[in-house]
């Protein structure tokens, strides 16, 4: 067991013929992900990766021909909202959006539209999903994580890799790693992923990697305190960040005094979460 992606995932890549799309498709296939189709409007009929993966003009046609049940999006930011709408309208139940820099008003429209449908969006601006040994959807380097029983959920990219690597060095593996992305409006929250990990029999413990901005970590703390039975270890990035300055991610900003690391750490500690002072401390706290 795992969450969101596994060996039954039939993946479609939107933007498969672009530089990033093609490179990461290759990486995903090498990892063992079942990539069944790609979409690039105007390139329908082409094949990529030595004729192994067919390219379609539209997501709807790709789904009809290949039965894809998940999509990963690599298209540029100006076309991203449209790509998400297209995937949702084609009936794909899981959409993972890697693209960074999507305008926030686009994301508000996307989110409010998807809320009316049975569609799960992960991202945007995220590294994607990895169920070690089974399936990789996105750009998380496969070799840094081993199969195990720790659920990892994070708002960051490379910081997640750092943590997966530290876990591996300590002999600890992941059930599934979920990058939810660093944007203020996204598809999946910490809370959504914690619920899934709580219900997943393979996941025994959870690592949550948050950062400054918003109140998603506080909502997660609420859930952990009231509903979660599995132990959680957390790290919050941005303790040293000054208010009013956007720390790279569109969502990582302390606004009007809210969204500070101290508030988040406090809320998590009150919920019984062990909070690490730095990412390399996480494996030790899990061993306890």
């Amino acid at each position: 067991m795992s969450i969101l992606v596994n060996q039954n995932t039939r993946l479609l890549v939107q933007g498969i013929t672009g530089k990033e799309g093609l490179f990461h498709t290759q990486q995903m296939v090498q990892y063992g992900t079942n990539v069944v189709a790609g979409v690039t409007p105007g390139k329908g009929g082409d094949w990529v990766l030595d004729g192994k993966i067919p390219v379609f003009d539209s997501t709807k046609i790709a789904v009809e021909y290949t039965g894809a049940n998940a999509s990963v999006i690599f298209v540029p930011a100006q076309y991203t909202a449209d790509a998400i709408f297209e995937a949702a309208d084609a009936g794909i139940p899981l959409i993972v959006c890697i693209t960074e820099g999507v305008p926030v008003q686009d994301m508000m429209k996307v989110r409010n539209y998807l809320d009316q449908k049975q569609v799960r969006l992960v991202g945007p601006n995220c590294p994607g999903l990895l169920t070690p040994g089974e399936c990789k959807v996105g750009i998380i380097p496969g070799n840094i994580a081993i199969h195990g029983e720790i659920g990892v959920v994070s708002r960051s990219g490379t910081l997640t890799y750092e943590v997966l690597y530290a876990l591996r060095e300590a002999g600890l593996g992941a059930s599934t790693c979920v990058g939810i992305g660093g944007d203020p409006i996204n598809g999946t929250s910490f809370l959504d992923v914690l619920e899934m990990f709580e219900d997943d029999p393979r996941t025994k413990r959870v690592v949550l990697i948050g950062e400054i901005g918003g109140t998603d970590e506080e909502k997660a703390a609420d859930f952990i305190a009231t509903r979660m039975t599995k132990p959680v270890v957390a790290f919050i990035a941005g303790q040293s960040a000054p208010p009013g300055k956007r720390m790279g991610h569109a969502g990582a900003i302390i606004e009007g005094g809210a969204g500070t690391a101290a508030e988040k750490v406090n809320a998590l500690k009150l919920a019984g979460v062990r909070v690490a002072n730095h990412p390399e401390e996480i494996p030790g706290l899990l061993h306890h």
Partner: protein
Amino acid sequence: MKLHEYQSKAIFANYGIPIPRGRVAENAAEARAIAEELGGRVVVKSQVLVGGRGKAGGIRLAKTAEEAETVAAQLLGMTIKGLAVRRVLVDEAANIETEIYLGITNDRAARKPVIMASAAGGVDIEEIARQSPEKIFKVHVDPLLGLREYQARDIAACIDIPREYWKSFIAITRGLWWAYCETDATLAEINPLVITANHQLIALDGKMVIDDNALFRRPAIASLRDVDEDTEAEVEARKHGLAYIQLEGQIGCMVNGAGLAMATMDMIKLQGGEPANFLDIGGGAGADKVAAAFRIILSDPKVRAVLINIFGGITRCDEVARGILMAMTDVKSTIPMVVRLAGTNAEEGRNLLRNAQMITAETLFEAAQKAVALVEGA
């Protein structure tokens, strides 16, 4: 991206929102000429991208054109919260009866735009929100439907706007909504919106913040950026697509990824040091970009040591190493450096840097420790 008051109000005017007559001036003589045109009694307002201008003495009333010239000369020599006043807005003075707050922003928890209004306008709205939140009326707008007329009417009724002003208030709210949508704003605010003694609604002050991620489709707005307000290093960083923010400390940081960059800064602080900057070179950065990042970090005279922390995923460590070597040949810095490379091609990267007089570290903890020791030892 923040817009100046005069820029925001010009946008509002395009959407049918009444604003005072007035223009922006870059010197005292210009301010006088504008005041003469407006008939003498004017408000001279510093144009800096920071809140609390009024409290800092950056907004002054002038009764005559001569006085406007004197006041403008004083303001143009001022510095407000570290920002030099380079322009003043000279506006016709209004006779204010009532001050209203009206703003639109993104409510990230609700994932919808929210319109906020209050009869207690004019002062700091965050202060009102803290002390008496019941005085602020909020309406969420479905982004797929847009603002509906009844919502604007509800706002007018709930903040007790006299009925004879409803029609113009609704038109202003609608105008503000479209200004917010069509500029990809994250904030569009009128504070105060006033009812004047001659029974008119006018936007006396305006503030807009634009979503940086949407500037690609708003070229006219993007061209309004005031680069005078950014440090040279920040302008340079933007040119190279680097996320860079200058801070107060002595340890320059170069990291790939925003989350990891923050974690690296935190680690420095945890070890008793202070980061000099936030810098994210982004995913898949090549040698050129790394070299640019390096030059930007070293352009900060406060920097006493540099910490480079790269976790290779898409970014390859050997590529980063090449960028560092490239930059070192033309910057020729004597500032000591600590490098920690992990992940994709880390070994190749470390080999490239072997002869480059750099301190290496295995873990982030060790890297920060060494960087802090360098600063303390200096």
